[in-house]
């Protein structure tokens, strides 16, 4: 296994691509549950749809992998550009009163991060098969970016007082 940079083997790239989608499915499902608990049903529904979208993408990657034997990596052996896989929402950016526009903005950022990840792999790789696979995955993410932008256009940006809660959690007043 290559140790540094983005010199993946085809099997390693597939493992990373699959992990990106599966982690995103898990992350979006959990966020949907969190929003549902806070009665933010609009955003819960959006995160649920995102989970389904990422699950479909994971299936597509599985089909691409076919019968190829994929290596089993420890969680700390994945080589992400940041702290988390590129399609995981930064949980610190989440708010229980967030609006659909804000949720979709985060989702769009994720798709852009994933696209950048695969573009970087395609650019850096010296292996033709890895390059082609990475280009294919980047194209998928590019399509998701377009979808997210269309989707985002349907929701207005949040009002200035979007986080106003008449019954806030802090009992300090």
């Amino acid at each position: 296994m290559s140790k540094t940079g983005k010199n993946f083997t085809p099997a390693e790239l597939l493992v990373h691509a699959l992990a990106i989608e599966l982690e995103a499915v898990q992350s979006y499902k959990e966020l949907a549950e969190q929003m549902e608990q806070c009665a933010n049903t609009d955003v819960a529904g959006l995160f649920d749809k995102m989970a389904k979208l990422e699950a479909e993408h994971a299936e597509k990657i599985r089909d691409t992998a076919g019968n190829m034997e994929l290596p089993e990596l420890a969680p700390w052996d994945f080589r992400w550009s940041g702290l988390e896989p590129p399609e995981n929402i930064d949980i610190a950016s989440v708010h229980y009163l967030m609006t659909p526009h804000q949720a979709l903005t985060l989702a769009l950022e994720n798709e852009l991060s994933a696209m950048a990840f695969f573009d970087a792999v395609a650019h850096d790789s010296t292996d033709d098969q890895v390059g082609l696979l990475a280009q294919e995955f980047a194209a998928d993410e590019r399509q998701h970016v377009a979808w997210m932008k269309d989707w985002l256009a349907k929701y207005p940006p949040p009002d200035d007082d979007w986080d106003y809660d008449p019954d806030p959690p802090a009992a300090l007043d």
Partner: protein
Amino acid sequence: MSAAAPCKLKASDYKSGTRPVWCPGCGDFHILASLTKAVAALALAPENIAVVSGIGCSSRIPAYLNCYGFHGVHGRALPMATGLKVARPDLTVICAGGDGDGFSIGGNHFLHACRRNVDITYVVMDNEIYGMTKGQPSPTTAPDWDTELAPGGTGVSPFHPLVIALASGANFVARAFSGDVKGTTKILAEAISHPGFSFVQILSPCVTYRPDQREWKNKVHPPPVSFTTDAAQAARRVMTDDGFNIGILYKGSRDKYGQAVERSGDFERDLHEEFLV
């Protein structure tokens, strides 16, 4: 740690069906993810893991795990975990909780758990606040954190858990950041695997009462040097850092509790085994 242990179960298999009631954005979600990934990577069977906690937001974690769990009394998680490990050394015992539970109400137990060096892992999800009771300053709160509950700040120096753990004899000491799931997973896996008392302080933002902690993700950084096996050197390093170095600080080689008995004659071993539950 170089290679993955053969994983029989996925991380998600270690999660129970109970939905966490933590606030959206809470760092504890990431710690739950890291812990499940760590035990999955170590291929620990759920029936051989026990997670013991005290009281507080973070102490709810046993309910969200698919293994044995004990949600105990405020500040008393460590005595419970210690007793369990001594009675059932075959189990992997993980003790979890927050900074108020562990360093204030349970502060005395923390010192002696480090000293006894029983083979357990203590995970403190530190948000520098009492979150469950709505935002009072905790032992790790900065002295100048100004709120309506503590106008002008407490003016009291914060507790330094890593230094105290080192001074008290903990055998493995590390600091992690909840938002760094990959790094936290590795640290937890190493802590669980290390013999003796392992202490991991995980900086875990409370986005509800300390929204300023959302910035922690931009403040944390790897330590400038690797871990040391010299407790005094580790203490000097951590006393002078900025509080945002994340990584393993210290790995000791002190005998874990009971190791001397294990090495000694049959009489002592028989006596020890006689009292095992």
